[in-house]
């Protein structure tokens, strides 16, 4: 009876710019004698290791120092498609689509006049238009609209709630 022997060799190497690359080779072979397992495994290991080592020397694209980090910093300067400095794909509004929808929903639910919300935005941020509020300002406006209309601003954070207390 034929015995199936499966071998896999994998290697992961670190690269600059917080990246790494990995390559693995797998083979499946058959042997007829169980006593051949050790010898065959040893042979396969050497073969696979050689193959992986030979190929993994080709690093391909390697990010330069600051790669990714620059993207993060750039986001804050409007470099991101939904960055705070420009529009965020929701017309002329500077906040996120989600924030815009929530502001409009709150206005609708509580029958808030546009002028009143506009005044609140002016009072809080000196903004002439609600649509001109950035994400930070829109978040503050939403909290105030909820609070002023009898609600409690949402509990935020990612920590599962303890028996009480705020979560983060």
């Amino acid at each position, binding site marked *: 009876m034929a015995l199936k022997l499966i071998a896999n060799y994998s290697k992961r190497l670190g690269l600059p710019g917080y990246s790494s690359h990995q390559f693995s080779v797998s083979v499946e072979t058959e042997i007829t004698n169980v006593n051949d397992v050790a010898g065959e495994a040893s042979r396969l290991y050497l073969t696979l290791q050689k193959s992986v080592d030979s190929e993994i020397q080709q690093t391909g694209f390697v990010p330069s120092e600051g790669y990714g*980090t620059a993207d993060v910093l750039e986001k804050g*300067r409007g470099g*991101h498609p939904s960055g*705070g400095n420009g529009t965020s794909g929701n017309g002329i509004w500077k906040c996120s689509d989600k924030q815009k929808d929530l502001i409009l929903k709150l206005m609708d639910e509580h029958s808030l006049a546009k002028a009143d919300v506009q005044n609140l935005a002016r009072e809080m941020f000196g903004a002439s238009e609600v649509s001109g509020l950035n994400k*930070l300002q829109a*978040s503050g406006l939403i909290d105030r609209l909820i609070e002023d209309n009898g609600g409690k601003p949402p509990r935020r954070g*990612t*920590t599962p709630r303890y028996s009480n207390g705020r979560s983060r």
Partner: protein
Amino acid sequence: MIALASPSKREARDVLDEPVSASRLTLFHSCRLKFFFRYVQRLVKPVSPALFVGQAVHHALQAWSNRRWKSQPCSDNDLWEAFDAQWTTAQGEMDEPIAWDDEEEQTQRGKAWTLVEHYLATTPIPTDEKPLAVEVGVEADLSDMGLPTLCGVIDLVRPGGVIVDFKTTATTPDGAMALHRHDLQLAAYSLLYREATGENETGIELHHLVKTKVPKLVVTRADPINQDQAARFLRSMVSYVEGVKREDWVPSPGIQCQACEYVGDCMKWSGGVE
């Protein structure tokens, strides 16, 4: 055959789908097993008196900032009412109330209020200064870098874009060490602020209220984060993602275990194998 135990229905990928806050990231890098108990297994622990006091002080300072923002009266008396009401409400909302000893609650309430009073008397923030944001929730989508969404709640943003974080502590912090200890949090808030406003923060302030017999306020100021801090933060995020994917839950025994609410669970931990 050794198999990984799976005591929770939640898996690593569930955690990776969730936004990452600075506290989640910091916890992962300080003790992965504690992270596992809190965020994967979601083991609920009762609130400690110290945490409760910290939350009460924090809430009072939040009320103070909000009142300044709304141009409402914010004298000690005005704030006392808010503080007192919140103390009672918070206790009522607890699933498992704190088991105070005898008059300990009154003592702790008094200590907490003393901290608030001390802050109001010594804060560098003028009473008529209007904030840019108070307890504001912000997010940054980092999916284009293969990272989870970053989220956070910034305590206070002062005019001009100075990020403020309030802390209560039992010991007087050393400035440079405090900034280093909170490096991930400060970098996270800065990046979140930049994402939300399109502008760089102009500075960062840690306002530590020290719970000594005579309370102290220690304000530590820092410049806007630099490229190296952003790089460190990003590397920590990458490490977080890789560690969670590997389900790399290992304990990091140390002095911090003395105050860890999961120390009992940790001591019983079998190594994640069965």
